[in-house]
């Protein structure tokens, strides 16, 4: 009897947390949208590799990036506000600086180019600087060059030209970052 009640409550719990359908194309006014990107990154640098799950909340107030170990524990939390002030916390330490890239470099030995990445993740160039773009047959960005980075798009969600990417690689000097996106969510920016 007890197990019936337990299984029932498990079933009900499962229904209540059914996943929301995931976004596959960019919202109409993408610069006005806040996003949550749920995926995996794999950073290759100096002959070594760091794999992690990434949970990135990007909005008007700034960014929060959580890096999780394969078994779920939080490795680092990076937060930066709209002015660029950033903090990075690991389980042992907390770092602060006026620049998220510098922080990551200090704490992790590599850094994500956050400014560019918030556009590149959407398969768009950062409007602040010039970009070289090669389109593929579907009208998707195939390869983009900007700010010294080469961004190669390997997989899109749907054939539509405004499709969100699901997999891309960032390369700059010795650093190679693979990004795999398992789920996109959008909300209006507050």
């Amino acid at each position, binding site marked *: 009897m007890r197990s019936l009640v337990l299984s029932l409550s498990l079933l009900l719990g499962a229904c209540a947390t059914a996943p929301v359908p995931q976004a596959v194309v960019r919202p109409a006014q993408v610069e006005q949208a806040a996003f949550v990107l749920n995926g995996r990154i794999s950073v290759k640098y100096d002959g070594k*590799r760091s794999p992690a799950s990434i949970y990135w909340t990007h909005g008007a107030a700034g960014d929060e990036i959580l890096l999780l170990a394969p078994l*779920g524990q939080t490795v680092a939390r990076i937060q930066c506000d709209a002015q660029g002030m950033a903090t990075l916390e690991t389980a042992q330490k907390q770092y602060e600086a006026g620049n998220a890239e510098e922080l990551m470099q200090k704490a992790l030995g590599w850094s994500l180019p956050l400014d560019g990445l918030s556009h590149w993740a959407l398969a768009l160039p950062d409007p602040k600087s010039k970009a070289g773009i090669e389109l593929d047959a579907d009208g998707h960005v195939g390869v983009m060059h900007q700010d010294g980075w080469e961004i190669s798009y390997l997989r899109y969600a749907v054939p539509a030209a405004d499709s969100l990417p699901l997999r891309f690689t960032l390369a700059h000097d010795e650093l190679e970052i693979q990004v795999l996106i398992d789920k996109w969510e959008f909300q209006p920016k507050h």
Partner: protein
Amino acid sequence: MYRTLFITLSILLCATSAYAGASDKLKTFIAATRSGQADFTQAVLDKNGKKIQSASGTMQFVRPGKFRWSYQKPYAQLIVGDGEKFWLYDMDLNQVTTRKLDAALGSSPAALLSGNNEIERGFALKDNGEKEGLDWLEATPRTQDTSFEKIRMAFNSKSELVVMELHDSFGHITMLRFSSMQRNPQLAPSLFKFVPPQGADVLGE
């Protein structure tokens, strides 16, 4: 008449004193489970209780130190530990990352479960009563070098581990729920050695 009453009473009393709290059940579980296999679901909740990750798969272990966690959803990922090093294989990326079992990973749920008495040795155990038909305990680390502030565990009436909740220093909770637990199954040693598939990119961390 009195005798019957006496017998009834003593049976009741014995039954009560035989009641095992969750920390006894943990010790029983560890002592009586040399190997194990179970299905699991894993959810990570942020400090506001929002679910930021959910996954599921199967896990196997053989004491001491061997484990194999195979994630099927939302993506295929395999984590194998042989007691000294571990392999992480991401099928989509076709990448294998190897690493020595260090302090950080040593306190992961996989290592804790497959360890000999790491939980008893490294954590102070406190029984936390019964809830949802399960006996709960709270384990707090004796030293500061683990990445967890506390671990909560729940056992069923058969002393099987059903829930493991890991609270980290960020206020995040990793919730593991186990089902179809098999104790002491025969598990092939080859399950705990990982041979990278041909063509996979293999690198150390």
